[in-house]
């Protein structure tokens, strides 16, 4: 479904991705874990088209999209729920969700919104409030819900559990798992490596702009090096 080959990217003169290969098959949940600054966010930004690629190529559903502008990628089925809750702070929760469905004008928008409210009931309570007034965790949920309103076939999630209370973290991972039954393919970036590997089918471990290890999530969770470095066990 999504295949990344030899991806390089830089901020100014400093290269932070040094040639990555990542593949995500249709229907899979794949996670990328790694320390702070490894380049996970940069990878997702490249896939979403909001960060320039200096070499390599990105293929999505059989078509090369490396140079496709960011705003055209959602209509191809690729959505990003970005790091740092990039929501529309001046608009209400409901307006944020409606903008998530900016590309659509059919009655499914209302149904999708109801589904989002079932997934995140707190958003329903706050639907008419300005999104900038939500708590950090609520904004995080709104960012995920808004991405889903775009009807992605492949959802890129950047640290969805960040800043959430433990009970909500569990809830977010449940949501991720439930996406499988909705036939949404997921590429999940997480600090919480244990939680991510538990829901994922496969995983990649990133270290300073390179893939250091990859494999079945179950195998990675058992790997002694990973247990020591990322799981703190």
């Amino acid at each position, binding site marked *: 479904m999504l295949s990344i080959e030899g991806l390089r990217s830089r901020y100014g003169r400093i290269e932070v991705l040094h040639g990555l290969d990542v593949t995500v098959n249709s229907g899979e949940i794949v996670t990328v874990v790694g320390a702070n600054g490894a380049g996970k966010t940069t990878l997702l930004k490249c896939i979403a088209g909001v960060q320039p690629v200096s070499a390599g190529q990105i293929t999505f559903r059989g078509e090369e999209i490396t140079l496709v502008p960011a705003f055209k990628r959602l209509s191809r089925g690729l959505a990003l729920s970005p790091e740092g809750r*990039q929501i529309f*702070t001046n608009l209400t929760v409901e307006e944020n969700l409606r903008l998530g469905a900016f590309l659509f004008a059919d009655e499914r928008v209302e149904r999708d919104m109801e589904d989002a409210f079932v997934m995140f009931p707190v958003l329903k309570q706050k639907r008419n409030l300005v999104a900038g007034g939500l708590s950090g965790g609520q904004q995080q949920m709104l960012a995920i819900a808004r991405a889903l309103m775009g009807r992605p076939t492949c959802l890129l999630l950047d640290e969805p559990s960040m800043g959430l209370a433990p009970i909500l973290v569990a809830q977010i991972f449940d949501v991720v798992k439930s996406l499988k039954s909705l036939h949404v393919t997921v590429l999940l970036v997480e600090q919480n490596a244990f939680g991510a590997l538990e829901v994922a089918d496969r995983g990649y471990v990133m270290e300073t702009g390179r893939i250091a290890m990859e494999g079945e999530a179950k195998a990675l969770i058992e790997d002694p090096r990973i247990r020591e470095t990322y799981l703190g066990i």
Partner: protein
Amino acid sequence: MADFMQFALSGVTVGAVYALIALGFTIIYNASDVVNFAQGEFVMLGGMGTVFAHQAGLPLPLAALLAIALTAMIGIIFNRLAIETARNAPVVSLIIITIGASIFIQGVVQIVFGKQIYRLPSFSGDTPIPLFGANILPQSLWVIAGAIIVFIALWLFFTRTMTGRAVLATSNNRLAAQLVGINTNFMMTLSFGVSAAIGALAGVLVSPITLTSYQVGVPLALKGFAAAMLGGMGNPKGALVGGILLGLLESFTAGYLSSHYKDAVAFIVILVLLSVKPQGLFGTKTVNRV
């Protein structure tokens, strides 16, 4: 009483011009958070462009349309060359760029068309129409109608259309706007084009009354900016009300006190109001939680 009505009518006329300029500010501000001080030059280009196209032999309506279209193009080019290229600069730098552009446009117009003052014929003659015991020029009615029509169109655009929402989303969070599928570059192009066209329209409508020259833009930009601040930057309703209020304030000060004080009184009222209500009459406080 006749005096009062006369001052009111001329205040509303001037106010309608300020409102049109403030509406131009509103659009660009809504799309990019930039306060575009070159807005006054669009007004000047609209007036001057029409004068020269008319002198070259085009009928007045055609000359006006041509001037408005050309000004819209200049607005789009201005965005591409000066604003887009500096997109990652802080908003303050962008505002300074607009001031630079304003000086540049004046310079070019001065070189090409000279320093003379030009007049455009009135659209419907110069016979005053009696109204509420006072008189109003037919051209004033054109100005007022123009402001009201543009206001209604913009109000519908921002509140009722998906494209209007997309413009607002682009200004609020450009990254997020791209992620939901909005072509943010196009929204910027559209905003600058429409804003420049509205400025040019104001110039076309008002030139028969106030005359025009290469340097009419700056004072108009300042007044339009004051009107937009008074009403609440970013809100079309605020731009309309702020413009009319400012026009009335000036007109009554000039009429009952002295025209020397009209700018001073207007600005003092605005300063006082903004110190009480910093977001302006209709501005919404933005909630930003970090």
